[in-house]
C-alpha cells in the first residue's frame, strides 16, 4: 500500500517536473543574456464579448552585442547583426484551453531601430525548436520609423505548443514597453516586454548639434555681410 502510494507520488512529481520543463524555455536562464533582462511575462485577455480567453507566457532575454551567438542554451545561433547590436529574443508558450495564439506584437519607440532595418526573424535551428511564424516584420514596412515588431502564426498556435525563438536586433539597450498577444475568437492580451530605447545620450548629442548649427548661423551671415 505504502509502496504504491509512493509510486503514484513519484509519478506525479516526475510529470510535474516534465511539465515544468515543457513550459520553461531556455531564455529565462540563459547565462549569455543580460542578467537583469531575462524572464517571463504572463499574458491573459478576452474578446470584447468576454466569451473567450487567451492565455500565454512569453519568455524573453536580451543579449549584449556579440553575446547572442555565444548562447550555448540556444545552440550558438547565428547573430543577424553580426555581433554588432543587442539581440532581443522571445518565446511564446500557449496556455489555457480556449483561444489559440495568432500573433506577438511588441511596441517600439521611433528611432529604437534604424528606419531601414530588416534585422528581424526567428530561429528554427535552436535545440528548443517550436512553431515557426508565417511572418516576422517591423511595422510599418518600407523605410520609416518603426513603431512595432510583429510575428504572425498562421495557422494559429494550438495545444500546448510554443513558438520558435523569435528575435530582432537593435543598437540600443532595453526598457519595458507594451506588447500584445493576439488570439483566435478575436481575443487579445496586453502586458510588458523588453524593447529597445534610444539612449538619452543620442538625443543630447542631437540637440547639441542642432543648437550648434543655430548658433553658427548668424556668425556666417555677418561674415558674408562684412
Amino acid at each position, binding site marked *: 500500500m505504502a509502496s504504491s502510494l509512493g509510486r503514484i507520488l513519484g509519478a506525479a512529481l516526475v510529470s510535474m517536473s516534465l511539465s515544468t520543463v515543457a513550459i520553461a524555455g531556455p531564455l529565462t536562464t540563459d547565462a549569455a543574456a543580460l542578467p537583469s533582462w531575462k524572464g517571463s511575462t504572463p499574458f491573459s485577455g478576452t*474578446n*470584447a*464579448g468576454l466569451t473567450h480567453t487567451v492565455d500565454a507566457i512569453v519568455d524573453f532575454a536580451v543579449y549584449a552585442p556579440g553575446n547572442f551567438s555565444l548562447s550555448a542554451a540556444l545552440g550558438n545561433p547565428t547573430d543577424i547583426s553580426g555581433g554588432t547590436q543587442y539581440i532581443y529574443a522571445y518565446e511564446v508558450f500557449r496556455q489555457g484551453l480556449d483561444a489559440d495564439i*495568432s*500573433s506577438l*506584437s*511588441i*511596441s*517600439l519607440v521611433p528611432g529604437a531601430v534604424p528606419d531601414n532595418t530588416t534585422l528581424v526573424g526567428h530561429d528554427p535551428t535552436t535545440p528548443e525548436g517550436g512553431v515557426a511564424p*508565417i*511572418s516576422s*516584420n517591423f*511595422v*510599418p*514596412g*518600407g523605410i*520609416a520609423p518603426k*513603431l*512595432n515588431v*510583429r510575428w*504572425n502564426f*498562421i495557422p*494559429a498556435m494550438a495545444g500546448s505548443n510554443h513558438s520558435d525563438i523569435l528575435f530582432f536586433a537593435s543598437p540600443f539597450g532595453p526598457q519595458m*514597453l*507594451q*506588447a*500584445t498577444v*493576439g488570439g*483566435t*475568437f*478575436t*481575443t*487579445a492580451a*496586453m502586458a510588458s516586454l523588453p*524593447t529597445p530605447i534610444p539612449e538619452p545620450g543620442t538625443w543630447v548629442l542631437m540637440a547639441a548639434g542642432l543648437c550648434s548649427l543655430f548658433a553658427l548661423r548668424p556668425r556666417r*551671415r555677418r561674415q558674408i555681410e562684412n
Partner: protein
Amino acid sequence: MIRTRTSLLLVCALAIPAAPALAGPLPVGPLATAPGVYVDGFANVWHGSTPYSNPFGLSGFVDWAVWAPGTFPGFSGYSPTAGEYVYTYQAAVEGSVALTSLFITLDNAADNIGEFTGDAGFGLVDGPTPADFMQILPLNEAEWYWFGGIVEDDRSKGLVFSSPNPPMLSDGTLIDHGSFAFVIPVPSPGGPIIPEPSTFVLAACGAALFVVRWLRVRHSGVC
C-alpha cells in the same frame, strides 16, 4: 531679401506642425452611407461607421455595410457566394501608429472571404495596402492581416465575406503598436431565420379556415 527669405522659411516651419491639424480627421468612407444596403424586418438599415481607439495611439474607424442576397453592387475583385448576404468593411487609420490586423467575430456560418475595390456609384472604396493574408476560421473569426501595416490617414481596401445568414451586431479586434482595440458594434452573421411559433399557428388557422370554406362551398354546391 534676406528678411523675405527668413519669413518664408518661418512660415514653412510653422506649416509643418500645422499640416496635420489643418488636414483634419479622415471623413467616413462610402460604405458607411451606402445606398441599397440590407434593411431588416425592423427597418434597421445595415450600414454605418464605428470608431476604435486605445491609449497607445491606435485609433480610427471601421465603415461597414451588409447587402442582401443578389444586391452586392458593382465593385471589382469579389464575387459573392450565390444566394448569400454580403458583409463589407473598410478600416481607416487616424492615429499615429499602424494597423496590422482586423478580426471580426463569427458566431455563425461565413465563407468566401476577400477584398474589393472600386466606385459603385456612391464613392471610391479603396486603399493603398492590400491584405497580405486573410482567412475565415469557421464559427470563430474572419481575419485580415497587413504584415507591413496600414499607416496614419490610410484605409484598407474593401474587406468582404459572404454568409447565408442575415446580420446581427457583434464586435471585432484591431492590433498594433504592441496594443489592441475592440471595435463595437460591427455586423456579423446572425443565426438562420427561424419562423416564430406564432407564424406556424397563424398559418395553420388560415389553412383550417380555407378547408372549412372549401368544404362549405362544396357541400352547398352538391345540395
